[in-house]
């Protein structure tokens, strides 16, 4: 049977963001996949090098709308790695509280989308219904449902009002009951199992070879979690389990995320208990950043977010490298998509919870004459569409 090419994207109902996959298929089976990224031009790394350290934190918060506190936490860790500043205990708990709430809402977002992609919209409606109270918790804590603006070098910007803790605990109790219910459903539901078990398997060796991170690697039996391996903030002070499964299929990725939500709820509860009882400062002032290099990382919902900062003693970095988890998780498609039916390819692509705006954080479009966005995007888009049409239809 002859091989055919099926393009997915650059604009496709499956993808909230613009990406382009080329599936080589033999009959109904995917035999090869090519990934073409680079459709979003934002130049975060370049812009960050022109901002002060405090401004950079706001900038990196806008790399991703979902994990909008993971990048700032990794960024402040990197800067703190350069200047060796101590973080007040209360600030540690606030950072961990915000980070774990973000994990809950991000995993629920993915769970809903995954249900939607396999045509199981009940999952989508239930997951997103219970994501909403988590966003309300963010609003109580920070004043915002997203882009919380909480992180600072040396601590956090805003304190959690002790009077709000009972209300936050009440919402958390409600979410916990529902998450336990969803975990039971995931464990029992024949539709989810028949649709996801043994689909898009990523072997442990492939996860290691591709340097995959987060639930993508933990579902394949790689027990790496920055929260345990390098316990910054309050992670060394709270109890939680690292969820690891062995099969590496889409179902295991779902199980890891659902169980991680329950672990996150436990962490959030421990943080709220501490915040109700301990008092103290939330920010240590950092007057200057010495010359040097710093590495900061944080276990974002999708895996390790990595920031590297190089400084020269001025108030801005001379190099700020950002690596989002999707940048290393997306190439695993080249292993997990081969040999599966076309119908399973889309949920396999979605199973790593890919975030393309994170992946392409640094692309910067320039005019060759000077540093400015000065190309005719409409003409470029039409040219490319015409090229794709010619490639596919041969005319």
């Amino acid at each position: 049977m002859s091989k055919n090419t099926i393009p997915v994207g650059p604009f496709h109902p499956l993808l909230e963001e613009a990406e382009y996959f080329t599936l080589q298929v033999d009959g109904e089976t995917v035999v090869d996949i090519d990934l073409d990224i680079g459709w979003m031009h934002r130049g975060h790394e370049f812009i960050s090098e022109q901002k002060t350290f405090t401004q950079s934190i706001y900038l990196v918060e806008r790399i991703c709308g979902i994990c909008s506190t993971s990048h700032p936490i990794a960024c402040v860790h990197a800067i703190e790695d350069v200047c060796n500043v101590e973080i007040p205990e209360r600030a540690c708990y606030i950072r961990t509280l915000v980070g774990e709430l973000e994990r809950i809402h991000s995993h629920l977002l993915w769970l809903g989308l995954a249900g939607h992609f396999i045509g199981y919209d009940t999952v989508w409606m239930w997951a997103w219904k219970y994501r909403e109270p988590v966003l309300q918790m963010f609003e109580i804590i920070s004043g915002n449902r997203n882009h919380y603006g909480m992180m600072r070098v040396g601590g956090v910007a805003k304190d959690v009002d002790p009077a709000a803790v009972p209300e936050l605990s009440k919402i958390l109790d409600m979410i916990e009951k529902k998450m336990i219910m969803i975990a039971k459903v995931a464990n029992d539901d024949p539709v989810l199992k028949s649709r996801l078990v043994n689909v898009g398997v990523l072997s442990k060796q492939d996860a290691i070879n591709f340097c995959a991170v987060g639930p993508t690697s933990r579902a394949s039996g790689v027990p790496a979690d920055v929260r345990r391996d390098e316990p910054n903030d309050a992670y060394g002070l709270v109890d939680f389990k690292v969820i690891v499964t062995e099969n590496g299929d889409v179902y295991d990725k779902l199980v890891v995320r659902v169980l991680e939500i329950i672990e996150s709820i436990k962490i959030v509860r421990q943080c709220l208990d501490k915040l109700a009882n301990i008092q103290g400062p939330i920010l240590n002032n950092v007057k200057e950043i010495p010359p040097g290099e710093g590495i900061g990382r944080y276990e974002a919902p999708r895996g390790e977010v990595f920031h590297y900062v190089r400084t020269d003693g001025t108030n801005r970095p001379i190099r700020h490298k950002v690596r989002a988890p999707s940048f290393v998780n997306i190439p695993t498609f080249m292993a997990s998509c081969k040999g599966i039916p076309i119908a399973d390819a889309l949920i396999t692509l979605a199973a790593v919870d890919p975030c393309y705006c994170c992946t392409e954080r640094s692309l910067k479009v320039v005019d060759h004459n000077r540093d400015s966005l000065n190309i005719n995007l409409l003409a470029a888009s039409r040219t490319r569409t015409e090229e794709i049409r010619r490639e596919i239809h041969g005319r």
Partner: protein
Amino acid sequence: MDRTDEFLKEMGNKISEQIRKPKRLYFRVENKDLLEVVEYLFKKMACRLSTATATEVHRGIEVLYQFSHDASGCYFCPRVVMTDLKNPVMSSITPVVRGAEWIEREMFDFWGIKFEGHPRMEPLLAREHPKGLGHPYRFRRTT
């Protein structure tokens, strides 16, 4: 003996310009020794490649690989320095570490660094760009 000491004992003769901080080891390695050092980190010590960072400084272009030793939370960071700014070339580690494919392509894209031995040395993010990016991160030099 912690893992950093173990690494220094085995690979100490191949590295220079060590900067040692708690849970961080930055060091320079010559291009000819890079693959051996990387193979030791990835295969013997079971490190994971987090990413790699290119920086242009006065002495040349530096590529810093960041390997995470997850079991101990340490970072091992080999640094390669290329002084030929017009034609920066170095060895690719992708044949050893599959996960380096994209980041080396990104550095090729943004910095114009050629990685010898890379299985697919072509732009990553600007593959579809009508004119090519022209290595936008090479527009200025830093100290």
